């Protein structure tokens, strides 16, 4: 577990630096076990910072979500660094963003948090419903320890941990300026069992499965907006001319949306699972992303978000790439 005193001390040092504009971290949420992003601009705000397994958000999204208004005449653009706290999975988003040259390495200051897993808040709230007062979640060995209302409950890790953590290959950040805790060895991997199982079913079965999921979609765009890799200023899916996807919501347009969203993440998705976490109607979006992840790995031996020097998958090729599907 990250030591809070150390975390806040580091944050103080970072925010005091002249070349740092703000620090993006976590702070307690407004109720129950929730945590939320914190945007720290001054020393007086440092004390709210924390890190626990409730800190599910991928803060790398905020690096590319920043809204840049035109600089007013006579004003200089603010070129100071943004400091950001990242878990292992989140750090891969930074790597992939930089691989795509979204910004330069010296624009950001990375505080890495080696991570043994975060909770799936839906599982927590199903297990402990109606907790309004702020509670805390810790991870001790292979148990989550939840304290609330003066109670302390221990729950086996696998019961509350987020699914993505059970497949996590990179618990220690791949890019950082400072590491806030000791490195964590890889403790899990993805065997794609569910993807393979679904893949083996008949076309009709598969479509029935997805049709039900996609027909629930309300196109709130939360999966797109939360994604650290969806940072086009002008999203192709929002355009009216040419219009790839109509704004009306039905199974055809919803499917088009999900195909386009997932495809645009082919060879780019870094498995942080944020899209699936935020989906209000529980569409298993990671099953789409992981399909691509698996194919990309098997066909092109490529793993996104692992090396800044890698060229992006779809803007490169090998002469010997497979072509057994071509007539």
């Amino acid at each position, binding site marked *: 577990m990250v030591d809070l005193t150390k975390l806040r001390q580091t944050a103080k040092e970072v925010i005091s630096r002249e070349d740092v504009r703000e620090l993006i971290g976590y702070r307690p949420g407004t109720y129950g076990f929730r945590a939320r992003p914190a945007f720290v601009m001054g020393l007086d705000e440092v004390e709210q910072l924390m890190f626990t397994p409730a800190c599910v958000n991928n803060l790398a999204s*905020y690096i590319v979500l920043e809204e840049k208004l035109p600089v007013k005449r006579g004003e200089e653009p603010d070129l100071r660094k943004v400091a950001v706290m990242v878990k292992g999975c989140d750090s891969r988003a930074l790597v992939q963003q930089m691989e795509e040259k979204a910004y330069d390495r010296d624009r950001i200051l990375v505080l890495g948090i080696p991570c043994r897993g975060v909770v799936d808040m839906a599982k927590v709230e199903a297990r402990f419903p109606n907790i*309004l007062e702020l509670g805390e979640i810790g991870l001790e060995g292979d148990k989550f320890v939840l304290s609330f209302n003066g109670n302390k409950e221990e729950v086996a890790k696998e019961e509350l941990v987020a699914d993505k953590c059970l497949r996590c290959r990179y618990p220690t950040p791949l890019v950082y300026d400072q590491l806030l805790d000791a490195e964590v060895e890889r403790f899990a991997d993805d065997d794609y069992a569910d993807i393979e199982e679904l893949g083996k079913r008949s076309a009709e079965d598969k479509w029935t499965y997805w049709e039900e*999921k996609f027909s629930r979609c*309300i196109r709130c765009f939360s999966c797109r907006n939360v994604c650290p890799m969806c940072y086009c200023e002008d999203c192709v899916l929002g355009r009216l001319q040419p219009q790839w996807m109509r*704004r009306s*919501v039905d199974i055809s347009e919803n499917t088009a949306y999900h195909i386009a969203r997932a495809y645009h993440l082919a060879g780019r998705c870094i498995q942080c699972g944020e899209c699936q976490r*935020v989906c209000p109607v529980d569409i298993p979006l990671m099953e789409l992303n992981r399909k691509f992840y698996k194919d990309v790995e098997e066909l092109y031996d490529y793993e996104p978000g692992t090396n800044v020097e890698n060229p992006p998958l779809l803007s490169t090729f090998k002469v010997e790439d497979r072509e057994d599907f071509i007539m």
Partner: protein
Amino acid sequence: MAVKRLSKEKVADALGELSKFRLIAPAKSDDVVVFKQISDPAEACLDYGNSTVPPKKFAFPQTETLFRFVTGSPELEEKNVEEEGTTIIFGLRPCDARAMAIVDKLFAWDFDDPYYLKRRELTTLVGMACVEPPSVNCFCTSLGGSPFGTEGLDLLLTDMGDHYLVQALTDKGKKLEETLSSQLEGAAADDEKKAKEIAAEAEGKIRRSIATGGIPEKLPGLWENELWKKISAACLGCGICTFLCPTCHCFDIQDEVEELGEGRRCRMWDSCMFEEYTVHASGHNPRPTRKERTRNRINHKYSYYPDKFDVIACVGCGRCINLCPVNIDILDILDQVVDAS
């Protein structure tokens, strides 16, 4: 008005009777509770908190055709809402019904919106009182609602353990009660008293609250306050809070052309949190960042709407709090508004 009983064994029967109309009831799609049209009573799931997507979509569909056309032809074929027929929304929560009553004011403001109003006329709302609050973030009592509220409803059901207490509230409700005459039975003498006790207890279980008095008057003065910047810092600009809000009613209108120049003009939900919402053809956007959009959302609900229609456009259902990906909490915002100077 005399109250009736619906024993739980006869619920399936009653739903079967109602399915001769267009019957909407809560059902499960995987683990998500959605309101949908059901034909088989077994599909209905009455043991639920509240649906993720509010039932507003049956008065104000996410996408609906206004009229069809053939390009180049002067003939426009108007959508006939009447064809959808009598609709029963069974088991919606009092807050969602109250939300419809609030949105009715907007759709009848000066220009009648024929699609919405016709659908409302065709729809009977059968409410299900919240004996237990559906979520920890319910705060309906702060906004003049109640877990047993009847505003907007035609019929209210209360779970009394082995049966539901049935109260008809309007003529439409009475008519429905007649339809169900063979499933309903007379209530016991103390049923109503018991229901009142349960109601009082249920109100006590609502744990979140906000004193709304003064907020509508105060908001305009906080226009330049830095709280908006702070609140919106974490906002992703997605549409969860607005699409899942039972009172949000903004829409976009789009033309869709098909093969051979046939097409339709339709409207679909839109969200003030989207960038495209206000952007001009010139590219200029009067609300350029999420700060302005967040400010507009809160102001619209808590200041502009009460200014026009004398009622806050929020019913305290808690959906936006439960499902916001970054825990932006409207009660937290309102607390800040109250504290701000």
